[in-house]
C-alpha cells in the first residue's frame, strides 16, 4: 500500500485561512481527498472557491459510499439487487408505494395553446408552501425519502423569491422566444453617415456590455433558491437566455454595418458590479429588475423610436418585450416580498436605504455623455442636430423617472416623495 503524499504546508495554511478549524483536521480530510485521486491543484482551487470542511466531508463520504468497502464496483445493496434480478425477482416498490398521489390528469384550458404550467398547477401541487421543510430537488408534490440530503439552499421562504405573476411570465417567455440570427431582417441594414453609425454603435456597445449582467445575476442566485419554488428558477432561466440573446443581437448590430464596438466606461462597470455583488437576492433584484432593467427598457423604447432602418426597429421591439417581462417579475416580486416579510416595516426601511443610494444611478446614467449624446445625435439626425436631439433625452429622463416611481408605488414601496432624482432633466 502506497502512503499518501504529505500535504504541503501552504495548502494547510490556506485551509486554516479559509476557516477550517485546524491544520490537523484539514490534513486528515485532504489526505483522504488525495487518496481518492484528487490533485493538490484541484484541492487548492476548491479551497479558493469556498469549499467548507462540511462540504468536503459530505463529498468524500458520498464518493466512499458509492463503492463497497472491499473496493468492488457494486455495494452490498446493489449486489443483492443484481442477484435478485438474475433470479427474475423484481423490486417493484416504486409500483406499490402508497405514498405518491396518482390519478392526476391535468387538462388543457386551451388546447390551441397547449398544456401550460397553469394547467398543471390547477391539477396538483400548484401552490408552493411558504416555508417548505426540506431543501431538496425532489419535485413539489412528489414522495421522497426522509433522509434526502440538504442541498444547501439559502432562500427557503416563498416571500424571498416569489411573485404572483411568475408562472404566467414563464409561459409567456417560452412562447415569445426569438432568434437574433433568424428573426432580425439583417439584410435591411443600410450604410449610415459616420456620426449616426458611431452613435448606433456606442449604444449597441453599451447594451452588449450591460445586458449580460442580467444573465449572470440570476445564475448566481438560482442554485440558492429552494427548488420548491421551481417556477421562479425556471423564469430566471428564461431571463438568462433572453439576456444572452440581447448581448448577441447588439454585438451583431455593432459589427454588422461598418461601425464597431465602441467605448465602455468605469462608471457603467461599477453599477454592474453593484448588481452582481448585491448581498441579498431582494437587493439585487430591486437594483436589476426594477431599477436597471426599467432604465434599459426605456433605452430600448428610445432605440426603437430613433431607429434608422427596419433592422434596428425589429431589434429594439423584440428586446422591449423581453425586458418588460423581467421588469414585471421584479415589480411583483418586490410587492410580494414586502407584503409577506415577517418584519414588513424593517424590510421597507432597508429597501428605502438601498433606493436612496441606488436611485442616484438614474441621473448618473442620464448625464453620461456616452449615453445621452449618441441618443441625441440619432434624434437630431446627426451631430448638427444634437441640440434638437436633446429633446428626446429630456423625454427619456421624465419617462424613466416616472415609470420607475410608478413601479415602486405599485409594489407598495412609495418613493415619490423620497427620491432625489429631479423631475425634469437639468439641461
Amino acid at each position, binding site marked *: 500500500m502506497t502512503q499518501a503524499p504529505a500535504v504541503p504546508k501552504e495548502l494547510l495554511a490556506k485551509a486554516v485561512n479559509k476557516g477550517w478549524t485546524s491544520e490537523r483536521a484539514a490534513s486528515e480530510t485532504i489526505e483522504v481527498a488525495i487518496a481518492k485521486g484528487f490533485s493538490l491543484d484541484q484541492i487548492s482551487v476548491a479551497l479558493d472557491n469556498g469549499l467548507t470542511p462540511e462540504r468536503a466531508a459530505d463529498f468524500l463520504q458520498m464518493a466512499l459510499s458509492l463503492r463497497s468497502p472491499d473496493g468492488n464496483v457494486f455495494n452490498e445493496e446493489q449486489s443483492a439487487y443484481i442477484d435478485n434480478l438474475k433470479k427474475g425477482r423484481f423490486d417493484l416498490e416504486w409500483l406499490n408505494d402508497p405514498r405518491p398521489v396518482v390519478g392526476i390528469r391535468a387538462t388543457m384550458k*386551451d388546447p*390551441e*395553446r397547449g398544456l401550460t404550467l397553469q394547467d398543471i398547477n390547477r391539477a396538483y401541487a400548484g401552490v408552493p408552501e411558504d416555508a417548505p421543510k426540506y431543501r431538496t430537488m425532489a419535485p413539489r408534490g412528489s414522495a421522497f425519502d426522509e433522509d434526502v440530503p440538504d442541498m444547501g439552499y439559502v432562500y427557503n421562504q416563498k416571500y424571498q423569491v416569489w411573485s404572483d405573476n411568475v408562472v404566467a411570465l414563464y409561459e*409567456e417567455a417560452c*412562447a*415569445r*422566444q426569438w432568434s437574433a440570427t433568424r428573426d432580425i431582417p439583417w439584410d435591411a441594414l443600410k450604410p449610415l453617415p459616420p456620426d449616426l453609425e458611431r452613435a448606433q454603435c456606442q449604444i449597441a456597445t453599451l447594451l452588449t456590455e450591460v445586458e449580460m449582467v442580467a444573465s449572470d445575476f440570476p445564475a448566481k442566485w438560482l442554485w440558492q433558491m429552494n427548488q420548491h419554488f421551481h417556477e421562479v428558477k425556471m423564469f430566471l432561466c428564461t431571463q438568462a437566455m433572453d439576456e444572452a440573446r440581447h448581448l448577441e443581437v447588439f454585438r451583431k448590430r455593432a459589427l454588422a454595418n461598418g461601425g464597431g464596438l465602441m467605448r465602455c466606461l468605469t462608471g457603467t462597470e461599477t453599477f454592474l458590479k453593484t448588481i452582481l455583488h448585491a448581498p441579498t437576492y431582494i437587493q439585487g433584484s430591486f437594483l436589476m429588475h426594477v431599477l436597471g432593467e426599467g432604465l434599459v*427598457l426605456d433605452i430600448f*423604447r*428610445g432605440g*426603437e*423610436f430613433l*431607429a*434608422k*432602418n*427596419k433592422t434596428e*426597429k425589429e431589434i*429594439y*421591439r*423584440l428586446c*422591449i*418585450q423581453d*425586458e*418588460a*417581462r423581467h*421588469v*414585471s417579475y421584479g*415589480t*411583483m416580486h418586490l410587492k410580494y416580498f414586502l407584503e409577506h416579510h415577517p418584519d414588513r416595516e424593517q424590510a421597507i426601511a432597508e429597501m428605502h436605504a438601498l433606493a436612496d443610494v441606488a436611485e442616484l444611478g438614474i441621473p448618473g446614467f442620464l448625464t453620461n455623455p456616452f449615453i445621452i449624446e449618441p441618443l441625441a445625435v440619432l434624434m437630431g439626425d446627426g451631430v448638427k442636430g444634437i441640440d434638437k436631439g436633446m429633446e428626446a433625452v429630456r*423625454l427619456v429622463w421624465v*419617462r424613466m423617472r416616472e*415609470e420607475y416611481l*410608478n*413601479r415602486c*408605488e*405599485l409594489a407598495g414601496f412609495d418613493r415619490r416623495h423620497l427620491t432625489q432624482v429631479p423631475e425634469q432633466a437639468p439641461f
Partner: protein
Amino acid sequence: MTVFPSVEWFEALSARVAADKEEFKRLGYFDANVGVKIDANGSGTKGYVLEFACYGVRSVRGVADPVAESDFTIEGSLDAWTDMVRNIQDHGEPDLDHTLNRLTMAGVPLKVVAKDQLEIDIFYRFNQSLQAYFNEAAALPTEFSRS
C-alpha cells in the same frame, strides 16, 4: 370595404389575423384586453376593446370607456389613428415614424393609458404582436371616416 374606425373594421382586421395564424404563432401568444380610444375630431369619442387570446382576437366590442374595460388603452385623435393606418397601407407596413412604439413614446400623437404601470408594461410585453395586428391593415380595403 369597411369603415375605419368601426367594430366591423377591427373585426375584419381580426379575421386577417386568423387567416395569418402561423405568423402570430411564431410571435407567441398574446393575452390582453386592448382598448382603442379615438377622439373623433370634436364629434365625441369612439371606444373599442379588442380581446386578444392566444394567437388571435376572441372578440371586438364597441364600448363607451375602453380604459375601464381593458388592460391598457391606446388613445389619440382620429387624425392620428387615420394617419397611422394610411401609412401602413401606403408602405405595406409602418414606416419608421409610424410604429406603435414610436407614436406612443412621447405621449403624442398617441398615448398608452392604464390603471397602473404593470398594465402599461403589458403593452411593452406584447408590442410585437400588437404591431403585427395593426400591420394587417396593409391589405384591408378601408374607407376612412371623418368623424
